[in-house]
């Protein structure tokens, strides 16, 4: 299978699941309170930041070049 298709499926899968979850939550008759919405917002942000941290752990930044030293 084309790697781009695999990548697109990888990307779309979790997003679709998250959206279905949100849609189900939104289908509930009661609206979220401000505090519930705020908690959702923080939780979503934490999830995104955690994914970034996980990726960073596997891809550490290259050491900064010391301007005083030779690039070699």
């Amino acid at each position, binding site marked *: 299978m084309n790697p781009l298709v695999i990548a697109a499926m990888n990307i779309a899968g979790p997003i679709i699941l*998250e959206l279905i979850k949100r849609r189900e939550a939104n289908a509930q008759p009661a609206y979220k309170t401000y505090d519930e919405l705020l908690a959702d917002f923080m939780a979503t942000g934490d999830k995104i930041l955690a994914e970034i941290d996980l990726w960073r752990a596997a891809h550490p930044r290259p050491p900064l070049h010391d301007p005083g030293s030779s690039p070699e």
Partner: protein
Amino acid sequence: MTLRTRHWIVLTVLLMLLACSKVPPDATPEYVRLARIDEAQVWLGTLSHAAIALNGVNVGEPPKPLFSTENTRIVTDIVESTIKTLRKVPVSWKATVAAALSEIRTRLDAAGKAKFNNYLAAAEAAIGAL
């Protein structure tokens, strides 16, 4: 980008639009703003998730990531700092997110721009409509 990949992106965008959170008719301006920021944050997460997923796919010989590690670092760094800014300064959220998307577009290299343009365009359109 293949036609099938574009279809996946279009499908994802449509689902995201359908999943937009409902705002009660008597919502306060603060509630409406938070709902919009929440949606914008989902888009930012989509961008960083897409970059990380594309970075995890290796193609060619020798195998190279479909989306380079340097480009992925640019996207994740900007998304991270934007989410932290949104938490601290929610009032100007739209300008903050627009600036972040613009910075990603500017800082990606040519190959990165070519691969990521559709994702950025989708995010810009969706956030512009919020």
